[in-house]
């Protein structure tokens, strides 16, 4: 760990890239499923939720990493929770001020970012033992890994469920006149779980190293 390590060394790039694929928090570690099901009926809330989670994981990682040598180990979980909770409240307030409509759609789920296992998981597993810069990259990477899945799921749910992408109608009216109907089922949370399941299936059939041997 020399100080001269370049900012984007191979190791650091891995911190960013792995959570997007072979170490994805949702599809591989299966964390943060609850909010992934709840906010993915439309793309817009999914994007805002992804950005919020990314901001919280990144900054919480940096703060905990900066404090890592001072935190008394007996209250380290409490310290982590306070940092995460404070960041989430700030995100919630900012959304209420600048993206009021979206904040209403996300309702309780912004507050529930506190309980998102991805964040506490990264703080315990990474930030407590690493320097701020890698911790920051790790936070961004995991936030993005979470976001990518949310956006893929929301894309299919909005397209099939509402015939739109990011609020713009893409299925032409002529289709509806010919008898095409939006699939109401896919708006419901169970179909989000099935969509996540299909993503996991596709990912594992392409990357055999993810399949557990038993």
């Amino acid at each position: 760990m020399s100080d001269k390590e370049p900012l984007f060394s191979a190791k650091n790039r891995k911190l960013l890239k792995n959570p997007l694929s072979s170490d994805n928090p949702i599809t591989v570690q299966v964390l943060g499923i609850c909010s992934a099901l709840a906010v993915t009926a439309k793309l817009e809330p999914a994007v805002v939720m992804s950005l919020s989670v990314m901001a919280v994981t990144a900054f919480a990682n940096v703060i905990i990493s900066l404090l890592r040598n001072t935190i008394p180990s007996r209250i380290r979980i409490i310290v982590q929770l306070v940092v995460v909770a404070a960041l989430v409240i700030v995100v919630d307030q900012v959304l209420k001020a600048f993206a009021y409509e979206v904040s209403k759609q996300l309702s309780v789920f912004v507050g529930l970012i506190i309980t998102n296992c991805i964040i506490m998981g990264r703080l315990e597993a990474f930030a407590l033992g690493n320097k701020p810069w890698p911790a920051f990259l790790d936070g961004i990477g995991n936030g993005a890994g979470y976001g990518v899945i949310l956006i893929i799921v929301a894309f299919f749910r909005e397209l099939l469920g509402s015939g739109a992408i990011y609020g713009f109608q893409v299925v032409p009216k002529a289709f509806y006149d010919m008898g095409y109907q939006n699939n109401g089922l896919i708006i419901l949370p169970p179909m989000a779980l099935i969509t996540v399941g299909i993503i996991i299936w596709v990912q594992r059939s392409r990357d055999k190293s993810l399949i557990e041997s038993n």
Partner: protein
Amino acid sequence: MNTQSNTYTFLYASIMVVLVAAVLSFAALQLKPRQTRNIEIEKKQDILKAVNIASTPENAEELYNQFIVQSFTVNANGDITSEDKNATFAVDLKIENKKKLEERKLPVFIFKKEGIGEKMIIPIRGRGMWGPIWGFVSMEPDGKTIYGATFGNKGETPGLGAEISKPEFQKPFSGKQIFDETGKFTSLALVKGGGAVGHPHEFDAVSGGTVTSKGLEAMLRENLSSYEMYLKSSK
């Protein structure tokens, strides 16, 4: 320094809590004006929704100023107590509903648009299952027929109680009567299974949202009854 000692742990926790509290209060104070404005715009959109005028956060202000020609507060006897537009808009029903009937300030918003005519819009507020529910009811100038209604909720169960905020639930309120033929105040009664289609004094409950529906019924009765004298005098 021994980071495991009790003194250190206590000091660490105390300083952290004070720091975090300071940061959060600062953020809250900085963002407050914008948040208040968003809430005001939402209220204006809700008022317009009660007369079936759709608006976006961007044009709500403009439409509101254009169509809400008059706003004033009345007392329980139906006399106008204040014609200050801003004061009427700022009336908080949460506080008013706790006061005695004689002391309440009852806001009325007058809507006027060519082709639709003049309507009175009355704000209402009550309790649902998990938290407050509120809404706006617009009345025909005769003071007894409902023209439109919109309801909001803070935390009713999605799919059950929260259905009161859906257009499908709100639409049938149009045309209902809150006074019977003899001129007695009846409000609207909750009926499971819908009652007769177009029945003037009844509305359909939400399946699985019994507590919310009952709260809505009580909200309509309590709030509209305080306007009884005013509505009668406007005939």
